[in-house]
């Protein structure tokens, strides 16, 4: 690989300013784009060929291998076309953007592998309900996984970026869920109105937790947040007049599609669009709602990381005393981290309530907090992609090992130990710097010859 790219690099280095890097005028290097798409498709073939194409089935006399190449062709086709389209549209930006200015080594690593996996995940996430062979079970599972992806990203702000170990994150999930449930059942407010309210209320509770723990760090902070999570749960359990106590709250209204309900008969979603009524509509709709919410969480946290407040969170994680001596207010930095992290937990909670239609304190036990924290830690603190992968593996793994029943937690524990031995800082442990100054020009040319400038 090095020999060929080196050669290619040297000769077209100069003209590539116009040829290799698609200029604003629109000169696209078709060969490059095609080559890229073919390579991606080959990688997809290697991956999906084994994952989707082959399946062991129980048959009399042992296991047999069942082949299903149709699915593989679909998957590879999607990767090929998707990659092609992305290269021709979104990734086709004029030079001078941040990517071009990244140091070479880093770009190679995070740029290629990262975007490839990320793009594949996004593609699968976007098309999941329509993938061949995807039934109600898969979409439901996808919704569950995405809920945890979102919770993971929310907690990542607190733990990964700001370095505040929060063992009671589920409290905000509960606040969001109960906010929506109570507002909807008492005041008859709709899901979309309550969503921002749930966010704000959860933020508010984040600040309430933040105040007493301002001076705490590490273990002490963890203990207090743990207690906070339990307090919220116990209050929900015992304040029967308000929260319904252990009976929970039922008949929580479902979200509507621009005012259309997913109900049978006149005025429903199916009726309006002239479709046959199917219970799948709502499930697919819910899936896309959580997908959008998760994306919003992702975009906001990526954005925040580049803003001064995000930088302050990271600096605070590294060294509080240094932060203070540089004139940053620890109070403000900590409280914003708690509030925003909590807010996203609240959004996920509101979604959980509307999806389930019924909530009770049982859903918000410590094990949930531990699970979300495990996702963040295993994924790699501060890494968006790592958290997403960890959520897929953990929640998907839970489902997968359901048959083993009592051994499930054992496998779960073993997996955690193994990952911590193998990669002590999580799956994706590299922290990409958030800002670059313009590097030397040579670097820019290098990028171009890589084909993804």
């Amino acid at each position: 690989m090095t020999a060929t790219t080196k050669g290619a690099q040297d000769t077209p280095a100069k003209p590539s300013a116009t040829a290799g890097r698609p200029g604003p005028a629109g000169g696209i290097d078709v060969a490059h784009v095609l080559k890229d798409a073919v390579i991606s498709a080959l990688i997809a073939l290697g991956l999906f060929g084994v994952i989707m194409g082959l399946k062991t089935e129980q048959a009399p006399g042992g296991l047999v291998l069942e082949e299903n190449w149709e699915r593989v062709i679909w998957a590879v086709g999607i990767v090929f076309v998707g990659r092609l389209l992305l290269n021709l549209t979104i990734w086709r930006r004029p030079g001078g953007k941040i990517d071009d200015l990244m140091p070479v080594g880093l770009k190679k690593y995070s740029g290629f592998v990262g975007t490839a996996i990320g793009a594949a995940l996004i593609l699968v996430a976007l098309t999941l309900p329509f993938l061949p062979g995807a039934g109600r079970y898969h979409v439901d599972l996808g919704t569950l996984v995405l809920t945890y992806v979102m919770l993971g990203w929310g907690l990542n702000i607190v733990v990964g970026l700001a370095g505040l170990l929060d063992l009671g994150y589920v409290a905000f999930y509960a606040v969001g869920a109960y906010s929506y449930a109570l507002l909807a059942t008492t005041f008859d407010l709709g899901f979309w109105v309550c969503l921002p309210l749930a966010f704000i209320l959860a933020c508010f509770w984040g600040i309430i937790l933040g105040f007493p723990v301002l001076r705490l760090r590490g273990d002490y902070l963890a203990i207090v947040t743990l207690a906070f999570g339990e307090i919220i749960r116990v209050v929900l359990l015992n304040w029967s007049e308000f929260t319904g106590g252990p009976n929970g709250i039922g008949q929580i209204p479902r979200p509507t599609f621009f005012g259309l309900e997913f109900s049978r008969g006149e005025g429903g979603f199916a009726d309006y669009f002239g479709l046959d009524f199917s219970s799948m509509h709502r499930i697919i709709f819910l899936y896309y709602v959580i997908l959008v919410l998760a994306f919003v969480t992702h975009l906001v946290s990526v954005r925040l990381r580049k803003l001064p407040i995000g930088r302050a969170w990271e600096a605070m994680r590294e060294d509080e005393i240094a932060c203070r001596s540089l004139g940053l207010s620890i109070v403000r930095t900590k409280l914003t981290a708690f509030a925003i992290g909590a807010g996203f937990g609240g959004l996920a909670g509101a979604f959980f309530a509307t999806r389930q239609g019924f909530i009770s304190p049982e859903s918000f036990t410590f094990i949930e907090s531990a699970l979300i924290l495990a996702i963040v830690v295993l994924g790699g603190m501060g890494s968006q992609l790592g958290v997403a992968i960890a959520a897929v593996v953990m929640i998907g793994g839970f489902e997968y090992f359901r048959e083993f029943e009592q051994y499930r937690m054992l496998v779960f524990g073993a997996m955690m130990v193994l990952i911590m031995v193998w990669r002590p800082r999580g799956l994706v442990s590299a922290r990409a710097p958030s800002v670059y100054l313009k590097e030397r020009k040579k670097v820019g040319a290098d990028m171009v010859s890589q084909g993804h400038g």
Partner: protein
Amino acid sequence: MSQAMLEVSGVTTYYGNIVALRGVDVHVNQGEIVTLIGANGAGKSTLMMTIFGKPQARDGRITYMGEDITRMPTHKIARLSIAQSPEGRRIFPRMTVFENLQMGAAITDGTHFQSDLEKVFAFFPRLKERMHQRGGTLSGGEQQMLAIARALMSRPKLLLLDEPSLGLAPLIVKQIFESLRTLNQEDGLTVFLVEQNAYHALKLAHRGYVMVNGLITMTGGGRELLAREEVRAAYLEGGRH
């Protein structure tokens, strides 16, 4: 005396019940390099931290440019054009050199960022080479340079330095002290330096204080103190390093 930029008068500081400073009087005039020397545990770093509000002084008064900062929270003091490079450097190890410097400029409005950056890079060219490296991967000397550079990024008038020579090779120490002298002479930066390396510090400073057991026991011009028999005996034994 009323013209002093930083004035510490009669300050006492306690850690719980243990007294660390017993009525310290120190002042730093504009444009000076002042050093505070003393043995381990004399209270040098405590004085530095007390000036920055953590721990707060129990008695006495600290003023900066006429403003009382004795009870001010640390981050507000840092916004008064005083910069501190705390003991043990305390750079952000997992952030790049560039990001560290950005954090230093967090309290500025950002308009001078580029020119300030050029300036500190001119002083410490090594940092420019290592701009995209993580702070934690730098050598000790480079980390110290980064700590000073980061403090300079906030455009301070007064720089408080706590043991910049700690754990560094003599050559690097010399280099760092040289840059302090240049900063003082060319930019008029006032420097208050806490040091154990008495020889280098006193040679550099206009004035010096000697601290023993939470009290200032001697004061005078830098070279003058260097020549004093008591100072030589107590702090320069074993030759100059």
